[in-house]
């Protein structure tokens, strides 16, 4: 794998991680966290870990985002930091 692609994806992963923990709205955090998981899945796919990437795509970007949105729906979107 060309290391440039890897580096670009890693940059976006870190961007999504920082954004997910700094946004002041938990629903945005949920979406950014889904994006983070999807970037992670891309990274694993280019590393050749196809099974792990598949799991992350279905689990991280799919179901755990849904759990997150469900929990935010039952609690509050507000956050102080």
């Amino acid at each position, binding site marked *: 794998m060309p290391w440039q692609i890897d580096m670009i994806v890693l940059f976006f992963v870190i961007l999504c*991680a*920082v954004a997910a923990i700094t946004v002041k709205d938990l629903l945005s955090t949920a979406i950014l966290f889904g994006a983070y998981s999807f970037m992670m899945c891309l990274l694993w796919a280019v590393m050749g*870990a196809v099974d792990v990437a598949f799991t992350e795509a279905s689990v991280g970007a799919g179901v755990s985002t849904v*759990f997150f949105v469900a929990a935010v729906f039952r609690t509050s979107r507000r*956050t102080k930091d």
Partner: protein
Amino acid sequence: MGMTDIIPLIVAKYNYWLFVVLMMIGLYAMIAKNNLIKKLVGMNIFQTAIILFYVSIGYKSGATLPIIQNVHEGHGHAAIHAADYINPLPHVLMLTAIVVSVATFGVAMALAVKIYQRYHTLEEDELRMRLSEK
């Protein structure tokens, strides 16, 4: 050390450095964030950073996916070379770790919902205040 020495070093190690950065982001969110759900996001970032580290340990340059090819063409499988395939062992360990992490994430969310039902807040300082009132 000249410029020509630094670039191969960066290419060989930058992956690990960025995992460490990712792990620091997760750890910082777990320690310093006030909202419980933000802490959980930090925990998940921490987890994925470690999983990423494991998976990247198994990567071999010049190797292909850990699925044996051409198995239907007679007895070609007699000549399987380990160097041709990426190390599958970290993949197995991390695959189950991801599924368990989503299950524990679900339990954590259930706890957060329960806390919100009782105290009507998810902020750590407000929770401490409520608890000390009693």
